[in-house]
């Protein structure tokens, strides 16, 4: 009797150990130890970290489909890899968990209006392949407050999200401009906006594009003014893990391809016809008619043509998502127009 029971205890224990070992891979989704690209290909989908809800950049629509500027960047990379804009899974991230999500491999890339800084590039272990959006930090106030410049905000309560470059810019600017303020620090965007709208603070500060997005989402946008002062440089772009150059290259050249397409006048509507008829050598190389640029990136030769056919060029993406919420091209115009900074190196 005793013998039997001891055996059964052992058997149970053994079974438990085996079960837990077996269960481990069931929870885990293997992402491969080799570079990100292999993992994405093996998985069949790209996993993209996006903002949890910022109008114009990343927001689920009423049917739960993700839409926005950053979202289209993810889709463009998915098209380059799989020729299918639906082969991408969006993981909403907060300001707090976005970096660990990327570091840990929970997401393959982060397209979440993140500012490129030296420390993020180095000590956080990331690479910023490109600047998809040149932004700067500004302030929004209620129009009824009668404030015209940021310097008039002395003594005001200012709503700000913690843990972002925004917060540090604000304190540095305030010190330099000799402005005192009371911070109201709330982590989630929805809540900080709610507090601002409810009048908990006099001003709300974040990137100007974000301010425009928030303003346009309000029931009465005219009741809010975005002040003209821009207190910082905020180069926003997608980011990937450091040490995965092939994937970083793909993301980088996806961005450049979108910009170059606008430069050469390739649009979603005319990309088929341009592929067939345009005689410019660079256009031919870009669209994969000649040369093997796609192969160098490790994708299909017609990768860019397909991206443009689906999402349109940089200007079209911008016009579709950002123009409606009141964001001007400004520095994000092509380098060929005055004040424009979007520039793509040659496709050669």
């Amino acid at each position, binding site marked *: 009797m005793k013998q039997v029971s*001891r055996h059964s205890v052992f058997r149970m224990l053994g079974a438990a150990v085996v079960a837990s070992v077996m269960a481990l891979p069931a929870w885990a989704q293997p992402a491969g130890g080799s570079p990100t690209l292999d993992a994405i290909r093996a998985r069949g989908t790209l996993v993209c970290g996006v903002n949890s809800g910022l109008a114009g950049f990343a927001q689920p629509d009423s049917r739960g489909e993700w839409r926005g500027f950053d979202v289209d960047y993810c889709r463009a990379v998915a098209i380059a890899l799989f020729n299918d804009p639906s082969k991408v899974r969006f993981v909403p991230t907060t*300001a*707090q968990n976005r*970096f*660990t999500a990327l*570091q*840990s491999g929970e997401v393959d890339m982060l397209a979440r209006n993140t500012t490129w800084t030296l*420390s*993020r590039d*180095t*000590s*956080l*272990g990331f690479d910023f392949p490109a600047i998809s959006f040149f932004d700067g930090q500004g302030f929004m106030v209620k129009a009824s*407050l009668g404030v015209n410049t940021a310097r008039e*905000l*002395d*003594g*005001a*309560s200012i709503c*700000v999200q*913690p*843990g*972002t470059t925004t*917060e*540090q810019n*604000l*304190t*540095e600017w305030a*010190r330099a401009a000799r402005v005192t*303020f*009371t*911070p*109201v*620090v*709330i*982590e989630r965007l929805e*809540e*900080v906006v*709610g*507090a601002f709208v*409810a*009048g*908990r603070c*006099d001003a709300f500060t974040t990137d100007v594009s974000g301010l425009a997005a928030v303003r346009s989402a309000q029931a009465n946008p005219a009741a809010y003014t975005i002040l003209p002062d821009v207190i910082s440089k905020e180069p926003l772009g997608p980011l990937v*893990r*450091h*040490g995965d150059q092939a994937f970083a290259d793909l993301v980088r050249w996806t961005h450049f391809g979108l910009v170059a397409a606008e430069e050469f006048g390739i649009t979603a509507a005319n990309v088929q016809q341009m592929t067939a008829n345009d005689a410019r050598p660079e256009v031919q190389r870009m669209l994969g008619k000649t040369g093997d640029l796609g192969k160098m990136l490790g994708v299909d030769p017609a990768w860019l043509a397909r991206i443009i056919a689906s999402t349109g060029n940089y200007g079209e993406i911008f016009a579709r998502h950002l123009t409606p919420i009141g964001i001007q091209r400004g520095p994000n115009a092509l380098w060929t127009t005055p004040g424009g900074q979007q520039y793509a190196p040659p496709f050669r």
Partner: protein
Amino acid sequence: MSDAIVDPRYRRKPPKRPLRLSWADERIRGIVWQVLVVGVVFGIIYWLWSNTVHNLEVRRIATGFGFLHREAGLPIAEHLISYEPTDTYLRALTVGVLNTLKVAVIGVILATIIGTFIGIARLSKNFLVSKIAGFYIEVIRDIPLLLQLLFWYTILQGLPGPRQSFHPVEGVFLSNRGLRMPSLVWEGAHTATVLSVVAGIVLAWLYGRHARALQMADGQPRRIWPAAVALIFGLPVAVWLALGAPWTIDWPAMRGFNFQGGMAISPEYAALLTGLVTYTAAFIAEVVRAGIQSVGLGQWEAAQALGLRSGSVLRLIVLPQALRVIIPPMTSNYLNLTKNSSLAVAIGYQDIVSIANTTLNQTGQAIEGIAIIMAVYLTISLSISLFMNWYNARIALVER
């Protein structure tokens, strides 16, 4: 099981049997089990640890607590010690700990007072009073605290703006920027006064002990209160007068966007405190009720037979006995309140969690940030436990 009462004749240790290297030997089995379990646990820990070290290295994530001495650059709205964004992370985190303590200490005091009242009200002979208390306890305990905090914060945000603020009394303003009250301009003399109050209480207590000792010796009762009043009230007033009786009131006034001057209670702090206190008070009320009910009916009846009024029965007879039942669960409620204060992060009160969170976000050092949060709470929890255990032991000693 080893603490079983053993006949003293058998106190001698049983003769030590030599270990047999066999599974049938209980001691061997025990050792094998322990080695196995400890090995598995440490194996898992080692596995996680080596993964972490590897990941940190591969992903080039900085480690160590060196960041504590870097400039924080984060603004903090409420600070008990002076703080500027140019100060270090260490100081910012200290401010966070103090903010946590500020809400926890005041919360514990208020929750105890309110909870005790509700617990007593729950047992009231008045039907209406006891039913209202019961309703309060049931409803509050069945709704998540986080929801209640958000609710209070929404309510406070719904107050009018600073320019249309409620203004019930001169110098008091209630708006969606919080509550502004006049405050005393603090000077050295005030610190001295407060210290002399403390000194007065200590002296009065010593005097009381001395008087009781004398009474024990000669049986003569001595009046303590005149000396106590003189020490606790007279001494501070004398100190204050001697130091020039400074008395300047700082009146809040609307200047620019906000009120300036005076003392402020922010909506975040108010919402957090209200939520924590109302929530914990409901639990404390139940503890108090159970404690009072644990005192036998005979105690009540005997006290009433002595002619004590019901308030006196409660204060002199029932509460001292009930306290022994009340203290242990009360301790866990205090601990819960302190731990629940971490929900501050949801409504923008900058406690230690909020600031450590921002720190880990800016430095990217998640492990260090969370280790700090856990260390702080463990320290606070252990201190409260130790204090309450000490107090519990003291109370238990009274039992003869």
